[in-house]
């Protein structure tokens, strides 16, 4: 299976900023919000492939790259989940319905959900990393019959840091999904698992030679999971990871996100673990 960078087919004017209106804001956790947006220039909806990102521009404050967290088959609503960690993301999280911001994109490579048709799917997310994989989950669930076993493993800091909690309950309730959730620190009421995500992989059934893994989260987590999947016989070429980097222009002009000969904004964020281990020296982690 090849997870080669794909040319983005949806951006004709890569630097064009389009106005989007915030239509809904949901607080996910103490520092993370989900925004629904709709296009405000009367033009086409923003179509995207799972794993792609946009550049979100708050007028007068600044611009940040944020992965799209919504459903690719419902492009009429652009969904972004944002953690307030800096000036721009704080401004985004403080937006209220009716405000208009600028959006460029979508940019970047995508999760190989189409190429993985017919395979077992293993999705492992950590923390805010659930947001970039949620479009892939939507895709797989809408085409559930096209895949073998589907497993979702999600690790979080505490129970109150879990994103999309209602959806997680829906996913857990299904018989055709194996959903495993763990937190680093429980609390008095948490009855789920506590500990790192690695041991949860023992609870998954998949055919290591006919599976695709989608990993998104802290780099150390992705490395440990990739190693464990390799130990269970999975070729590392079938493991995709998403990298977050210091993306500024989104189109490979500015060089801010350059690593080796590549640009995250053009060749990433989704890459095969193979490439990452090599190019980013993740084996040195």
């Amino acid at each position, binding site marked *: 299976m090849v997870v080669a960078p794909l040319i983005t087919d949806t951006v004709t004017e890569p630097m064009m900023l389009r106005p989007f209106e915030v239509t809904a804001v949901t607080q996910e956790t103490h520092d993370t919000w989900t925004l629904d947006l709709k296009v405000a220039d009367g033009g086409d909806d923003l179509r995207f492939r799972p794993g792609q990102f946009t550049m979100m521009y708050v007028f007068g404050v600044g611009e940040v790259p944020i992965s799209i967290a919504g459903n690719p088959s419902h492009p009429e609503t652009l969904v972004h989940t944002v953690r307030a*960690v800096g000036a721009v993301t704080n401004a985004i999280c403080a937006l209220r319905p009716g405000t208009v911001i600028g959006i460029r994109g979508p940019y970047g490579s995508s999760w190989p959900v189409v190429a993985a048709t017919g395979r077992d799917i293993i999705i492992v997310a950590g923390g805010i990393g659930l947001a970039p994989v949620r479009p892939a989950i939507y895709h797989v669930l809408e085409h559930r019959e096209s895949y073998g076993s589907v497993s979702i493993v999600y*690790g979080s800091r505490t129970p109150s840091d879990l994103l999309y909690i209602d959806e997680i309950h829906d996913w857990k309730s299904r018989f055709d999904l194996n959903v495993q959730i763990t937190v*680093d620190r429980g609390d*008095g009421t948490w009855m789920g698992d506590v*500990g790192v995500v*690695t*041991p949860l992989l*023992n609870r998954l059934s998949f055919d290591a030679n006919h599976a695709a893994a989608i990993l998104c989260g802290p780099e150390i987590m992705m490395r440990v999971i990739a190693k464990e999947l390799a130990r269970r016989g999975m070729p590392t070429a079938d493991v995709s990871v998403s990298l977050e980097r210091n993306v500024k222009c989104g189109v490979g002009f500015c060089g801010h996100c350059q690593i080796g000969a590549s640009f995250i904004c053009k060749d990433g964020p989704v890459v095969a673990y193979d490439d990452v281990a090599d190019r980013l020296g993740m084996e040195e982690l």
Partner: protein
Amino acid sequence: MNLDAWRERSPMFEEMSDEHFAFLASLAEEREVPGGATLFRVNTPADRFYLVLEGTVALKIAGPSKPPMTIQTVGEGALLGLSWHLPPYRWQWTAETREPCRFAEFDANEVLAACETDSDFDNAMLRIIAREAGRRLHNVRIQLLDLYGRE
């Protein structure tokens, strides 16, 4: 007990010989425990250990003035209990079943007696325990990194 099917699904005993594993399995007692039960209590003598065949167990610690905190949960395929082989031979945590569980239970004295008479078996058991402790140490250190927090 016949634990061969369990063994195939857990990588833990892959280095132990079939003979040693069969011998160990012959010492096991099957035990079913309802959810919410206390398997063992912190600071009491660690005279047993378990292989988890089904269900999940929470390792907890509490102080007199604090609510209990769950340190870690262990599920199917896990070895539960290292303290029977490590000084001071007392449980470091309280173990509570999260749901109905099925275990292979071992009497530590029986296993230790077998270790005394058969140094190869002793060696094989020590190797399992060293590796399991090492693996958990690595996991807990990663937990400690607080990976999902803000940078």
